[in-house]
């Protein structure tokens, strides 16, 4: 246990702008967390930690209404950093989860909010996505569901922009080959 002193008691009200921002982007942020981690619990922990880091960093951008809001690319960057930190810190936990994975206990992590008719296809895509190397998965996730530009992806992943673009293309090609033409909708 640890005790942390605080300063003078000035209580702030919750910021409604943050809630609106998270309501808009929460799903895509959590999607990236799911891609970066191995379990739903890990994804939620990483998201919480990343949001706290983002909030503490004060990284903001101007939205379409000209108002300051938390930075979306900044959020993805914090998620990635948090996921890396979590992986480094929790080696023993990861080992346990590896064993649990072998026991088939983590197969219920779902990425997509699909309708009934989409279920089978969504599951096939999710399975195919998870067979891709991580460096392909993260680029596709950030581009398709994170709605980031290649420049923002490059910044988030700390890679050259051309690399981000080529990984995206290669990942799509690989996905297409996995999801055979006959299975395409």
């Amino acid at each position, binding site marked *: 246990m640890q005790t942390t002193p605080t300063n003078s008691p000035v209580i702030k009200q919750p910021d409604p702008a943050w809630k609106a921002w998270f309501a808009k982007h929460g799903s895509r942020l959590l999607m990236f967390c799911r891609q970066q981690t191995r379990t739903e619990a890990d994804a939620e922990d990483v998201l919480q930690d990343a949001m706290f880091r983002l909030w503490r960093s004060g990284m903001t951008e101007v939205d379409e209404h000209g108002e300051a809001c938390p930075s979306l690319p900044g959020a993805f960057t914090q998620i990635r950093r948090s996921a890396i930190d979590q992986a480094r810190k929790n080696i023993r936990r990861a080992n346990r989860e590896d064993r649990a994975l072998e026991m088939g206990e983590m197969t219920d992590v779902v990425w997509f909010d699909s309708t009934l008719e989409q279920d089978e296809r*969504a599951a096939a895509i999710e399975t195919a996505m998870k067979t891709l190397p991580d460096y392909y998965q993260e680029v596709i996730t950030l581009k398709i569901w994170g709605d980031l530009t290649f420049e923002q992806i490059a910044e988030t992943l700390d890679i050259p922009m051309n690399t981000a673009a080529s990984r995206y293309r290669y990942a799509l090609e690989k996905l297409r080959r996995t999801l055979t033409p006959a299975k395409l909708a």
Partner: protein
Amino acid sequence: MNSNEDQMIAQLERELLSLAPLPPDPALLLRLERTMHDPVLDRAPAAAKVIPFRKPQPAAMEHNQPNWKPWAAVAACAAVATGAVTWKHGQIQAQNALAASPKFISSPVQSQLQRVQQGNLILDPKGGLMRQMRLEINNQQHFEDRVNGALLEIRYPTTQEILVVEPVQ
């Protein structure tokens, strides 16, 4: 790359875009909201630290696993605070199956539990966690479900310090 391949990739891209990410669970939203807007954190965001708790994987539930310790600490703090167990002679006397054995609780935690008993320390009563525990303290499965992912905040009423339970490495 031929145009047929390009078309199929474009079709796949459209299909991927049509899939919406699964939205966050409402419990996670509540947890984030509390983290982001905790009034104490608002006062000292750089210093304060809130750590999420979650139910360990079955393998970690064995008593000698490190992650069992904070879990037991949470359970014990909650149990003592809600009166489900009592503190006597440095040991937690179990009144139901939920209570953690003191040997799995670190001595700093034990000393804090003593303070809870003495009335010098309070568990944060706000939020659903404590309310749910009061209601469901006798149902271990419900308790575990509720504590899973919840935050434990313990505050000293006099000094306004935050007590944070950290995972044992």
